[in-house]
């Protein structure tokens, strides 16, 4: 890789971390003009920037407003680069079906996890919020998902998470999926009790855990 190319990717990553949407778009256009590898620009530039933003979030340097601004910059850059990806670079990704469980409409946490999962190379199917347990199972089967990610902020709706797992077990397909849970009232012990495969306390950790668990699962 030329030093100019390397430098450009670093600048892309920095622009995402700096929440600078206009600069990110400008740099992404430079990547195209200079005919650099778009896949690498996404991975070493945009995704790297979002990953650094996620770390800053974990370190309590960044909070949700900053993460949202970083993700806006990242997605704006992605819009520019994506049409230029070569077909063989659009390899099939692990799919995640994500959503907020029925009875709850708080989706900021789910949206952050979605961003971090996409940054980590997952294809995310976002069902949205207030989603019945059955809909998670149906969609996961339909798209051949590897991960089902369930979110809730409400204590009243936590049981819906257990219901998703019960439904998977009833259909004897529990082992086909990694089930991850998260949200304000959720804890590792709750995840253990309902038989979920993973719990993460924040979006950055959730993406790392999903990568690990998605590779471990025997399909």
């Amino acid at each position, binding site marked *: 890789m030329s030093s100019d190319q390397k430098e450009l990717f670093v600048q892309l990553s920095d622009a995402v971390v700096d*929440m600078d949407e206009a600069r990110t778009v400008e740099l992404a256009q430079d990547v195209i003009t200079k005919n650099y590898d778009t896949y690498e620009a996404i991975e070493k530039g945009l995704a790297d920037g979002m990953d650094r933003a996620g770390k800053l979030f974990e370190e*309590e340097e960044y*909070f*949700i*407003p*900053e993460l*949202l*601004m970083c993700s*806006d910059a990242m997605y704006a850059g992605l819009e520019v680069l994506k049409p230029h990806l070569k077909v063989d670079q659009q390899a099939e990704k692990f799919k995640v079906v994500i959503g907020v469980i029925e*009875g*709850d*409409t*708080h989706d*900021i946490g789910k*949206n952050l996890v979605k961003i971090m999962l996409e940054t980590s190379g997952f294809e995310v199917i976002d069902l949205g919020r*207030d989603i019945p347990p059955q809909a998670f199972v149906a969609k996961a089967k339909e798209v051949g998902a590897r991960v089902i990610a369930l979110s809730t902020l*409400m*204590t*009243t*709706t*936590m049981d819906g998470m257990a219901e998703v797992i019960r439904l998977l077990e009833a259909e004897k397909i529990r082992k086909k999926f990694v089930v991850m849970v998260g949200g*304000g*009232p959720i*804890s590792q*012990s*709750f995840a253990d009790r309902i038989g979920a495969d993973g719990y993460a306390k924040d979006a950055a950790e959730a993406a790392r855990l999903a990568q690990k668990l998605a590779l471990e699962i025997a399909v």
Partner: protein
Amino acid sequence: MIAKEIIIKTIRREETPRVAVALLSGGVWTFNRRGYSLRDILGKPELNAQIISETYDEVQSDMVWVGSGYHNLAIRALGGKIKFRTKGAPDIQEPLLNSLAEIGGIRLERIKEDQDIQSLWQAAEILSQKIGSQALVGSSQWGPFTLAGHIYGIEKLMRSIYKDRQAVFTVLEVATELCYQYLEPFITAGVEIISIADPSASGDLISREQFREFVLPYLRKIVAKLHQKGVFVSIHICGNITNRLDLIPESGTDVLSVDYKVDLSKAKEILGGKIALAGNMNPVGIMQNATVPEVIDACRECIQKTNGIPGYILMPGCDIPPGVPLANIQAMIETAHNTKLH
């Protein structure tokens, strides 16, 4: 000394014969355990007050809340869409505004015209007359920052912190007035404490600096307006707020109620002698899922961590889910009743 005297002295950080104890909110728990959804109770102020009063007889919380779980009616009154649930509180389906330009169309007087909200005020009056001499009757609403998120969309509000600060301030002004317009008639009806819950101001969501700039000035404003009406004020913020505890007294609040993610010893160290402190058993991990002896242990730990300062209220860290066993609540109350102080 009767419960009401104990809680008032505690809020004033005066010495009391025993530890003060109360539920935070509890509306969903109160009605759901009796087989009612929150919608079932709408427009029935007598039934509303009666069930809360009967629950008080069973539980003996020093503070009793009316209108808990119904905060989002204020958004509905202004034209927002909310969805009622069999269990739990109604939630907001989408932000009230599509764009900032629509903010001038918000007619706050619609709150006073809303019959369901009127019925909550009536319930407050009945309840205050019924048990207001024994316990401290209170009501609540979301704080300005959380309401601003409901009005404008929480993600849009957060992006606007960077993209359009003036928009944030504009929405916060309306949110603060909305908060007051909803609460003021509760005070007229006889409630003596107001709880302001501002979960979106949590350290899990925004930074200390953002809290200082976008939350604190509006909390100060609403607290001052409520104090003018002669009530006590308590602020509750969910999640971890350790890094902004020292800023809270600037709001002028009488009480801060902290969630289970805050270390009470730390909170006592920072706030002791400045404002009263309430908290903070885990609502799910302890109040719902633990056994009675475990609840007692958790309560004792909270009391022990705040030992030595007047002005501590034993309270769950947040509102409790509908599945919390009565026995666990009673264990909490009894633990406080059995902890003699002076």
